[in-house]
């Protein structure tokens, strides 16, 4: 089975089993009772310590767009003619900005979105280095 690892440490957890959901890593401030993403060194409100926590893998689409320009770091538009981007509100009160799967007509504010690993490149030993993206949760 292909080994999948995050592009950088400290942003997300990718379980070995593809049956388990990926989760983003955030910070929880007990003093402010707030969650933050990405991880903070300390609480930006209270300046107290924070703990690293795994955030919920499903959220609601707050807003979206469909981009017809090359992705950051690339000079070519995707073969599909573009890609979606979205802001997803997680239940912890954290808003995530991410690439989202789908076509322009698929996106509706308020729809449920699920976090998944987004393979960015494969190393010579076969390891897949992954970022993240969100995909619409299929109803029913």
């Amino acid at each position: 089975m292909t080994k999948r690892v995050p592009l950088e440490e400290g942003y997300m957890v990718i379980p070995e089993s593809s049956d388990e959901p990926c989760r983003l890593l955030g910070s929880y401030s007990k003093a402010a009772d707030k969650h933050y993403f990405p991880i903070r060194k300390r609480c930006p409100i209270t300046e107290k310590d924070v703990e690293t926590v795994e955030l919920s893998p499903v959220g609601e689409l707050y807003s979206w767009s469909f981009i017809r320009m090359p992705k950051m770091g690339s000079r070519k538009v995707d073969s599909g003619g573009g890609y979606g981007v979205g802001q997803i509100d997680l239940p912890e009160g954290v808003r995530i900005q991410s690439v989202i799967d789908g076509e322009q007509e698929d996106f509706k504010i308020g729809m449920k979105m699920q976090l998944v690993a987004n393979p960015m490149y494969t190393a010579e030993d076969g390891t897949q280095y992954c970022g993240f993206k969100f995909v619409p949760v299929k109803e029913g």
Partner: protein
Amino acid sequence: MNRDVYVIGVGMHRFTKEYVPIRDMYFTAGVEALKDAGIDFRDVGYLYNGYIGGTMMEGTGYAKDLGLTGIPVVHVENASATGSSAFREAVWAVSGGASDVAMALGFDDMARMGMARRKPAPGVDRRVPSFENTLLPAGFFAMWAVRRMHEAGTTVETYAKIAAKNWNHGRHNPMAQRRADHEVTAEEVLAADMVAYPHTAMMACASGAGAACAIVATEEWAKKHANGRPMVKVTASQLCSEVYTDGHIFMGAVVGPAYSTERTAKLAYEEAGIGPDDLSLVHVHDAFPIEELMYYELLGICGPGEGDKLLHDGETQIGGRIPFSTDGGLIARGHPGGPTGLAQVWDATRQLRGEQGKIQVEGAQNALVHMMGAGSVCAVHILQKA
């Protein structure tokens, strides 16, 4: 401010997509500002260079073309608010007594700016973006625009109309990058290639190169060099970074919390002792039309949700109650980065002196200039015809 501060000279090199050596643009903007002020470079006591791209000591190197006078020369960088921040430093140098005359000179070429480079973690391919650098600014602004449509019923026609207005303001600004040879219509803006729904290419700010300069000084210097022109006083200088708000986005901050503009503007109004109703014209960070629309409301020009009506009533075009982006704004005048905030000061100063010809706002008394820097800082200055 401890001492009153006045803008005594402004100068620009036109914003452009064509190749012009940055050193030449820098020199032109600086010399034009010195000429406008009627002073020599040896009169300047402090120089703040504003640029985002570029190399170590680049601005200090170009300053040697203006003269070797031994003054402090400092590099200021605050993303899109770089020029505004350099201006603010110059204002504070004069206000605080460090110098009687200070210069802010912004320059840049967007074509040489790349994504942020940092040492990748072991085993990570340098070609792949990091987690914090995967979405384009165009996407952030577009998501703001889509949310606004959802919440307030704003239509794509509103965005197109703002862009067309700014294109048409830019037609008569000799320093603008985009100078259309005809009256631009909202239909034309909508028919342009889609960049990021709902924004088309004609709604996106013009990306190019350029330079702009402002010289500020004490009242004594301003009086001495007024040369029969109205004096232009800096009545407010505010710069804020973020405070936490619900839905706060730490990663890829480009839009920034709406609260930033409200908070910075409130402080500026208090400092100047005026309110939004006293303004004659406004410049904002209109990288995309959603921004200008939102700033109508966040700057207190109209109430929440009333921005669309303000636009459609023609109030924000030249000749209207409160013209926005009179020189074409980021959309038409252009947005090279470092000089953008100083180009706003260039227009605002000349507006208050009554020197802007076909884009002149009649009877201009107070001008507000606003810039966001990567969504993380907000700069607001108010200039007043003294």
